[in-house]
């Protein structure tokens, strides 16, 4: 049998981008990104606009122009004459704190999701995975049922501390020996999360009707009860967490290669892992404490942002924070206009928007190129 030898010109050449088919494949598999600055500018503009809109809508409609005048006047930058006292107090005492808290909560959840997905090298990780949400829920429900806690301080404090305690517990239980990675932590997180759910279920079971209403409302997420002192009390926690994560952008890039590789590149993996987990636990704990369990933000937002600016954390982290803030402010705004005068929990919106969108992403990308 003689084998047929191809003419040299017919031989496949392995250099890329020869022939239109190869060029097309090459183009399809190339990374496409929007410039970072463009995204930041557009994102901040959209966020600012939404914040003003959100402060204007609700059971009492206040014109956009008045909202900006009230804010300027309160900041001592403008003249507040001729504004009704009622409008001023609605905007400044009720709406602005919740809008600002919405910004912090959205930024915190989204940036935590982005950081945890890279830390666990798993695109499906979200802040729930380190146990903070489950712990916070159990803590909040426990406070409501056992202490009849006021939703202003006792409940958020209980939720925050319980969230951190559970994160600490998971970290200690999953503390890697010499050589185990984060997969152990995922498994411990799932197990401890189930335990927290059982505890939450137990408290729910023994709760009376009024307690049940409070805890259901909290569990679905809402910014309705946010007041200025809460905003100021949590601001340092949010700022510290956001700054720590932003400073770890390059660390997170390398962690996507896996922990072993990151160690070979000179990263102190144990210390980085601890730093990132503490920062995300603080952020998520503070967010969940005041806004309740708002799902899907930490999971979905980073995915969408990766498609736009790529997986590099120098862009991914800040843009995720802005996009998360946009999503929560928009959801909070919607929660007030859908069925006035009652408010629909924010968690319903984020899940209603997030779940189908996420499914769409998963179905569209057959190959797992996040």
């Amino acid at each position, binding site marked *: 049998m003689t084998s047929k030898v191809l003419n040299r010109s017919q031989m496949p050449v392995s250099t*890329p981008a020869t022939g239109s088919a190869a060029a097309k494949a090459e183009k399809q598999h190339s*990374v496409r990104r929007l410039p970072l600055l463009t995204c930041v500018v557009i994102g901040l503009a959209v966020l600012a606009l939404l914040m003003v809109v959100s402060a204007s809508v609700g059971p009492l409609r206040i014109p956009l122009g008045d909202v900006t005048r009230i804010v300027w006047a309160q900041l001592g930058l403008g003249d507040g004459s001729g504004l009704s006292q009622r409008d001023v107090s609605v905007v400044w005492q009720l709406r602005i704190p919740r809008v600002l808290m919405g910004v912090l909560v959205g930024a915190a959840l989204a940036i935590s999701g982005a950081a945890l997905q890279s830390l666990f090298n798993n695109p499906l990780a979200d802040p729930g995975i380190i146990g903070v949400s489950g712990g916070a829920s159990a803590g909040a429900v426990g406070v409501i049922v056992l202490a009849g806690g006021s939703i202003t301080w006792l409940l958020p404090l209980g939720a925050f501390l319980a969230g951190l305690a559970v994160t600490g517990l998971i970290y200690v239980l999953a503390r890697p020996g010499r050589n185990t990675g984060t997969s152990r932590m995922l498994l411990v997180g799932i197990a401890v999360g189930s335990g927290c759910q059982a505890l939450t279920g137990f408290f729910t079971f023994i709760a009376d009707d009024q307690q049940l209403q409070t805890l259901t409302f909290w569990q679905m997420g809402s910014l309705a009860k946010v007041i200025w002192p809460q905003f100021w009390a949590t601001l340092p926690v949010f700022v510290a967490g956001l700054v720590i994560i932003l400073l770890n952008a390059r660390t997170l890039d*390398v962690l996507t290669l896996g922990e072993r590789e990151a160690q070979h590149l*000179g990263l102190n993996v144990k210390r980085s892992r601890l730093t990132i987990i503490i920062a995300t636990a603080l952020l998520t704990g503070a967010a969940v404490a005041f806004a309740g369990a708002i799902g899907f933000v930490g999971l979905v937002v980073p995915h969408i942002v990766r498609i736009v600016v790529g997986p590099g954390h120098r862009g991914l982290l800040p843009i995720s924070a802005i996009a998360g803030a946009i999503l929560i402010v928009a959801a909070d705004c919607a929660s007030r206009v859908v069925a006035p005068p009652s408010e629909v929990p924010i968690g319903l919106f984020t899940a209603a928007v997030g779940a189908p969108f996420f499914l769409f992403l998963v179905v569209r990308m057959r190959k797992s190129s996040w």
Partner: protein
Amino acid sequence: MVRPDPETRPTPAEARPTPAEARPTPAEVVVRARDVTFAVDGRELVSGVSFDLRAGEVVALVGPNGAGKSTMLSLLSGDVSPTRGSVEISGAEVGEWKPGPLARMRSVMLQHNSSNFAFSVEEAVHMGRLPWDVDAEHDAALVAEAITDADLRGFETRDITTLSGGEAARVSFARTKVQTTPIVFLDEPTAALDLRHQESLLTSVRQLRGDGAAIVVVLHDLNLALRYSDRVLVFGDGRLVADGGPAEALTESLVEEVYGQPVRRVRPEGIDHPILIPV
């Protein structure tokens, strides 16, 4: 926090003597393994291995599957600590090194390289500069050179999650190269590569050696070891069964004994090293 902190670098002020980061002189012993033993549940995966690695040599680690080659490489890299014995890099135990300085001393290319995130080839290679202070121009030049060298030109903007196994291995090798360390550990770098890229990768390895680096490379293809290495360490069942020049160490009888596979050693005309053929 991002790069290794200044405080993690050795300073004269530190009480404990810290490893020197200076570039080794030619033929200096840079890695010293003594009686290295690694046991899991009482079973020794590597037992009593001793050898030196000198600057300017390519040492091939060969042996059948499960002989302990990759475990040995993990021990050298500092991923695991020996149960008994010691591994020294530039005169200090691997475990004594802080991650930052160690990453400026030795680089490691692993067998499996996959990412879940769509970094571009260029970004993935650039990550190899992490241990060093940022110098954008110098870094970009090194990355470009490594990309060209790994035959990845035209792939710079490719999404790394869409690469084939061989392409991913070349990205990983390029990343190892831009780490510019005097000691390089490679775990089966050629396993996924086609014939031409196997040759070009090992030619790059020879160039690193020419620049004074010390290289340990795990290889399955004994003919590649014969052709490209200065010394071969043959592993069998966790033990070092032969250590010497490739032509001296890889005899027909030793290969048959270690692999349980008879081979013939031939020397084709015009080829200046022997070739092993299974029979």
